[in-house]
């Protein structure tokens, strides 16, 4: 970018182009599959010359999976998760990096460990919590005898209940906790020079103002990256949305997509399934394109 380096530029272009091809290859298989009719898509090997049924397949997938409203649901859901994760991670990392209190590292590890057990293995008790998000606290009150004490003293029976099934809250809230985000911000905040904090304090700015006026603007690029990844991650979630939205009308695009995937003994209409995949993939791809606008070269020197 600074000087002319023709040979290196050519090598770079070739490598990037190879990367581009590798990225697009599996996707092109999907696109081609979506253009075939059912007979052609099941040929081995599948012909790589596109067929003529693209619009037919797309229309059928759109109607059969009722994708219009489901994509809207998914957008609310994925935006909610991405926004929630980006903000809660920033707050947590700010607390961990910029404050001193006992148990800080324990807290960091507690957050980190949440990465280590997939939902599939803890689905039964997790669903119970979604059915009543306050059930852990009820149990604690019951076990500690507080429920009993309150009942004896006032005649009031404590019954905490907050059902999350079939709600956006239930879809979004349990997925907002994020170890990845907290860790990412921690790494970034640690690179910010201490002088920034000292200067802010000299100006009389408190922690909150420092966070909003200095930290947030500096973190824009990281936020864009994290937000994009989290949007895509949430978009592709399957098991949780399927469980909490028992009412089909509130399903997400990806849960609907799974319903298009042919099963043994069914008609193997992979052409329609792949057309559906393309439609469902589109919003994440657009988010990735939009994200580029937030990638702005850093201006503050982070070194001394």
């Amino acid at each position, binding site marked *: *970018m*600074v000087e002319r380096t023709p040979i*290196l530029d050519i090598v*770079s*272009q070739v*490598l*990037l182009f190879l990367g*581009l091809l590798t*990225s697009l*290859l*599996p*996707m092109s*298989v*999907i696109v081609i*599959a979506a253009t075939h009719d059912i007979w052609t898509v099941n040929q081995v*090997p599948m012909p790589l010359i596109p067929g003529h049924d693209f619009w037919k397949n797309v229309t059928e997938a759109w109607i059969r999976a009722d994708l219009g409203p489901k994509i809207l649901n998914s957008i609310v859901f994925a935006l909610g998760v991405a926004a929630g994760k980006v903000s809660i*991670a920033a*707050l947590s990392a*700010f*607390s961990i990096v*910029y*404050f*001193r209190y006992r148990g800080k590292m324990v*807290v960091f590890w*507690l*957050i980190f*460990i*949440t990465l*280590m057990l*997939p939902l*599939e*293995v803890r689905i*039964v008790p997790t669903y119970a919590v979604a059915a009543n998000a306050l059930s852990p606290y009820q149990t604690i009150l019951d076990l500690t005898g507080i429920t009993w004490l309150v009942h004896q003293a006032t005649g009031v029976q404590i019954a905490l209940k907050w059902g999350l099934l079939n709600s956006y809250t239930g879809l979004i809230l349990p997925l907002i*906790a994020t170890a990845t985000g*907290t*860790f*990412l911000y921690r790494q970034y905040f*640690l*690179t910010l020079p201490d002088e920034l904090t000292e200067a802010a304090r000299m100006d009389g700015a*408190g922690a909150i103002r420092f966070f909003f006026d200095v930290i947030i603007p500096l973190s824009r*690029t*990281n936020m864009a990256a994290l937000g*994009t*990844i989290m949007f895509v991650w949430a978009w592709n979630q399957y098991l949780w949305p399927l469980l909490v939205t028992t009412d089909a009308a509130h399903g997400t695009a990806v849960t609907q*997509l799974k319903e298009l995937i042919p099963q043994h003994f069914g008609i193997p209409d*992979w052409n329609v399934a*792949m057309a559906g995949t393309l439609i469902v*993939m589109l919003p994440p*791809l657009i988010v*990735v394109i939009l994200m*580029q606008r937030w*990638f*702005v*070269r*850093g*201006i*503050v*020197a*982070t070194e*001394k």
Partner: protein
Amino acid sequence: MEKRALFSNKWLGVALITPQILLVFTFFYWPTGQALFWAFTLERPWGGGNEWVGLHNFASMLGDPVYWASVAKSMVFAFATTGFGMGLALVLAILADRELRGFRVYRTVLVWPYAIAAPALGLAFRFILAPQAGFMAFLNHVWPGSWDPVLNGLDAMIAIIIAYVWKSIGYNFIFFLAALQAIPKSLIEAAAMDGSGILRRIKDIQVPLLTPTIFFLIVINLTDSFTDSFGIVDIMTQGGPARATELMVYKIFFDGFKGLDYSGAAAQSIILMLLVIVLTFFQFRYVERRVHYK
């Protein structure tokens, strides 16, 4: 790692972290605690009885050589996917950061693989890696029998590693690129003025400034490849042939989610979590020393 300049308001710090703590307690630790308790019992999936068996589940698992083989396979998979996924992404990110012609297209398209939905990923790779029909059929045409993931365990392992790496490059790429963008232009220009070439600048300026991100990605990639890889195995190989791709987390998924052996899955989960915690601990203890935060 500790900053010199900190805010003194302890309670504000605690308040800022409280929402996250409430979330992880309610939606992770409370249910997970119950699920992991089953490791010490024989839990009936529909409820109605769970017999306390102490460490029996662990004993029968750890006494099985098949289990240890799956630990070894998980290690191979985790280190291979982390190494290739990060290495390739780093090279591509540094190149894309140079803002050569068409860089906006590269930046976008190289992230796209992360956005692909799982069933489509399986289908596409089945097509690409199929020995009798797909692109790999060509390889078999030139060297017959060289690629056979159906019966050759090593080939099957390579197939799931390729698919996993392909998807993870997009993830790693975006974070590398974000970190590279944060390096001020002035710094690079100053170094260029001093006469250091591009490769030199990459080595002396960019990579050291990337170490916080590299560390972040190593930890996340290793953790994810241990705990989040069951989907790809399920779509592509189901742990076969003859257990060659039976990763620890796939076995947990298979026994617990599909096979309804909650107690066995819980015991395996505890071992897997301990393994990943120890690995992560060592990384924070020893690898983080080499990270340049300033």
